[in-house]
């Protein structure tokens, strides 16, 4: 099993979680992929002690070696730098 985490800033529209609805701000994405390709997604506020799930936790990759690419793709889609 491999686990990857990345920190990103959500868009003002946030990310929809199953447990608490939309969350915003500095978030951390964690993806885990088992050897047979089952991919799970979790997300939390940076520094928080609880994780939430996002839709798509039952995705399955044909090849677990694609985990890193999928993770990077998700972060690039979710990340939105804050205008300052």
């Amino acid at each position, binding site marked *: 099993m491999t686990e990857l985490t990345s920190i990103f800033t959500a868009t003002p529209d*946030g990310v929809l979680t199953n447990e608490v609805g*939309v969350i*915003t701000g500095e978030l951390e994405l964690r993806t885990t992929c088992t050897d047979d390709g089952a991919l799970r997604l979790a997300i939390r506020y*940076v520094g928080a*002690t609880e994780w939430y799930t996002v839709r798509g936790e039952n995705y399955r990759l044909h090849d677990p070696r694609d985990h890193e690419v999928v993770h990077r793709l998700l972060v690039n889609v979710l990340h939105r730098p804050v205008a300052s």
Partner: protein
Amino acid sequence: MRLPRALIRRLSFLAPLVLVLAMAFSVASAPTALAFPPDVPGKSQVQSELNSLGVQAEGSMDGYSRDLFPHWHTVSGTCNTREEVLKRDGTNVAVGSDCYPTAGSWYSYYDGVTRTSPSQISIDHIVPLAEAWRSGARSWTTAKREAFANDLAGPQLIAVTTEVNSAKGDRDPSSWQPPRTASHCGYAKFWIHTKYRWGLTLQSAEKTTLQSMLNACSY
């Protein structure tokens, strides 16, 4: 109901009177819509509360967990806070011995939708727990956070559809407002008064949005 034409002609002189009475009662009265939380002050008081709130950037989410805002706790008998709000905000609510509703309907103030199943209704924390954490509640005791999360005395809890509650999530009024425009005045008042009662801070953009929402208030 259908009235005979002759009767309608005879009563037609009443129409202007009815119109005037209807206007008199609609001016400057707070909405009597169901699901309106308690302790909502008038516009001028809310304005002075908004003026007095501290403005600062949001704090970090370090250490945050919903467990640090214990809810829903038992209020009386078998009834917890969620069930108390379901009774308060619903119409013709009947409950079983466990206090869970067995009948009733709930009008969702944010989106104007009515539901008859309590499983489709969520109790929204008007100032969300995560928003409270980064606006000052991080330094509170857990007991104080529990009181905040179960606050039945002020306008902090409201029964709304699960969908609208999920769509709102942790967002403040600068990035999310209820879809039903007619609820914006009430929503701004609930938000400001709750932050005032609990000594929470505002972000600059949040204050600007709340001010324009309050400006549009007629009551």
